[in-house]
């Protein structure tokens, strides 16, 4: 068996069995659920409740239609005080009392809430009171409500995309969504798991186990084993996240067929069909992997060179600058995916993992020319190759370098000598 495989297996199992990993992996979809699903779910539940509202209509002109949410009960009383004496306080037959004045055009109606628990009731009653007033006014000036509805019917407008290839439905929205999701995932992935690779190397250096390991495994095998292990850890986490999120969405779908989220989701799925999804996925996966290898190898090299976390900061900061730069200009690239800024950021290998998936979302041959795309891919492969070569040398020298805080000069020397 290859030794890098043993390193990979140990590292992977160790990371995956860690409590923090398990908690993170399960918690994120749950957080997602609680942020998106729960409010909708709670809202739906509270809607189901049927409010009972007593109406004292002193004008006698308004018509209140009971709905699923609210039942209006006309009561005869001259005012709230009289009503109070009529009802049994213990039983609370009403949730609220609406008192409409004799001249509702000039005087305000009053809604008495019998408890503070239901915040929604005032909104619901306000809407219905508005409708009742509108109905009253239509009658006053003799307009049929149906006529008004006809007038307000939405005008029909179809948005199409017209290119040399023909006319298709526009899918700008979904393209922006794809661009943002792709860029943010790559960003998150490079940062979080690159950092993990760094800490993993540092842990072994700090507790001195590394000397024993490199007496059995070549440093290069150790570095690759670790980088790949963390890649697999990340993929494991992603798969669990996707499965759980899909599961949660599905169960919501079963719970409420016409839920808002599902409608939107179906709309998105419909629109995605107009994007070259195969190419987008290839681009995303390509830059996802190469971006991780590029940054992960440098992070690992930094981890090998230092033995105190604070010493790592001075090297981590410049390394993260291109990533931050790319994220800052993300918005600009999305709105102008074939501009100068977009071109350069998608060609330069340190920013291309974030920017190229954005540009490709807007279509090859449109936002990105084929030659730009291929150039970016080739440059990325060359840079990753060179980085692995250089960082392996830093790693080899760095892991046995203790005590002193290394300088950039040291790192350069290691690359030259290693």
């Amino acid at each position, binding site marked *: *068996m290859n*030794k890098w495989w*043993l*390193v990979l297996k*140990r590292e992977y199992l*160790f990371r995956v069995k860690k409590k923090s990993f398990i908690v993170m992996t399960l918690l994120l979809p749950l957080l997602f659920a609680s942020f998106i699903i729960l409010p909708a779910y709670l809202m739906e539940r509270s809607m189901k409740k049927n409010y009972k509202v007593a109406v004292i209509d002193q004008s006698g002109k308004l018509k209140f239609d009971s709905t699923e949410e609210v039942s209006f009960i006309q009561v005869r009383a001259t005012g709230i005080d009289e009503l109070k004496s009529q009802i049994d306080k213990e039983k609370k037959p009403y949730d609220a009392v609406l008192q409409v004045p004799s001249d509702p055009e000039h005087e305000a109606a009053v809604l008495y809430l019998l408890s503070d628990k239901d915040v929604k009731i005032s909104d619901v009653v306000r809407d219905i009171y508005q409708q009742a007033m509108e109905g009253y006014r239509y009658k006053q000036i003799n307009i049929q409500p149906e006529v008004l509805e006809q007038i307000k019917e939405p005008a029909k407008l179809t948005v199409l995309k017209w290119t040399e290839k023909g006319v298709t439905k526009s899918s700008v929205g979904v393209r922006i969504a794809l661009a943002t999701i792709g860029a943010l995932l790559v960003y998150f992935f490079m940062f979080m798991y690159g950092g993990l690779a760094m800490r993993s190397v540092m842990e072994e250096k700090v*507790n*001195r*186990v*590394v*000397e*024993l*390991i*490199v*007496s*059995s*495994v*070549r440093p290069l095998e150790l570095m690759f084993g670790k980088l790949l292990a963390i890649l697999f850890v990340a993929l494991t986490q992603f798969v669990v996240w996707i499965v759980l999120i899909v599961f949660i969405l599905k169960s919501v779908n079963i719970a409420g067929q016409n839920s808002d989220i599902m409608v939107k989701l179906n709309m998105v799925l419909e629109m995605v069909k107009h994007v070259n999804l195969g190419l987008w996925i290839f681009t995303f996966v390509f830059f996802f992997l190469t971006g991780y290898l590029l940054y992960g190898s440098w992070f690992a090299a930094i981890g090998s060179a230092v033995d105190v976390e604070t010493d790592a900061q001075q090297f981590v900061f410049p390394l993260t600058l291109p990533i931050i730069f790319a994220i800052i200009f993300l918005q600009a690239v999305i709105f102008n995916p074939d501009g100068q800024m977009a071109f350069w950021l998608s060609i330069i290998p340190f920013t291309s993992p974030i920017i190229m998936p954005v540009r490709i979302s807007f279509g090859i041959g449109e936002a990105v020319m084929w030659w730009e795309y291929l150039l970016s891919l080739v440059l990325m492969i060359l840079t990753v190759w060179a980085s692995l070569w250089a960082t392996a040398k830093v790693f080899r020298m760095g892991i*046995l370098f203790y005590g002193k805080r290394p300088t950039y000069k040291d790192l350069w*020397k290691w690359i030259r000598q290693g």
Partner: protein
Amino acid sequence: MSFIEVKNIRKSYDGHLALKDLSFSVEKGAIYGLLGPNGAGKTTFIRILNRIIVYDSGQIFFDGEPLQQKHINRIGYLPEERGLYRKMKVAEQIIYFAQLKGLTYGEAFRRTKKFMKKFDMVTWWNKKLEELSKGMQQKVQFLITIIHEPDLLIFDEPFSGFDPINQEMLKSEILELHRHGKTILFSTHMMASVEEICDSILLINNGEKILEGDIHEVKQQHKQNLYRIIYSSPDAQFVENEKFIVKGKDSGQYLVQVSEKEDTNTLLQYAMRFGEIVHFEEVLPTLNEIFIQAVQNSNLKTVEQ
């Protein structure tokens, strides 16, 4: 036959020579002491032998072949800076390192079981390393060093950090490995610890060889013709002359240096005049004394140059 043969090894860091044309050989089955003060180049050499770092020039032969990556599975290494995975379970850890040294999982598992039984460690099987005491952790580290039954064992400062009980255990285990024909390389600056177990030594300072050979021969070469005489009476008075010079005395005990031309019997005959002798022995220098002397001489030489 030499198990390790080192020819003109040279290694420099940052323009400073850590090893200067070092050459020596270790016999198969020997217990060999690599001695020298801190910074002499011992750890550098050991790392080269473990193929952790590369050397600039020279040659190393391992069991007759030029040293290659495949040989590292036949080496067991106890580094000076001990360290294992703190959060990993003991048995899992031993099996992992055994596999890294080329054992299959099954074989690694079987041996881990066997050795843990032998060292009374079975109850630690599922414990995390950090739950063990320091002494126990060192036992685990030692076990990892020998689990793959290597032909060459390298101990870098083995006795530092071990408590006296574990030091004794370590010593007897090392002697057992020696009986099984393993070649053992010690590296230390603590002479007393190796004096009784090493067959041969190499003394290096500033990356250079200053002394090499069989430990008894080395001692003979460096003896200063000193003898200890003890009289039955504490009042006995030894009178020195130009041949026999008193180097130390303490109530009936004398340390006498004999000039090179004289032999032991002449001293004994001369000494008998001053009282009844109950004890007479040749005093050989300790390794420590030889070491300090040799290092000082070599430092002087460096200064002169």
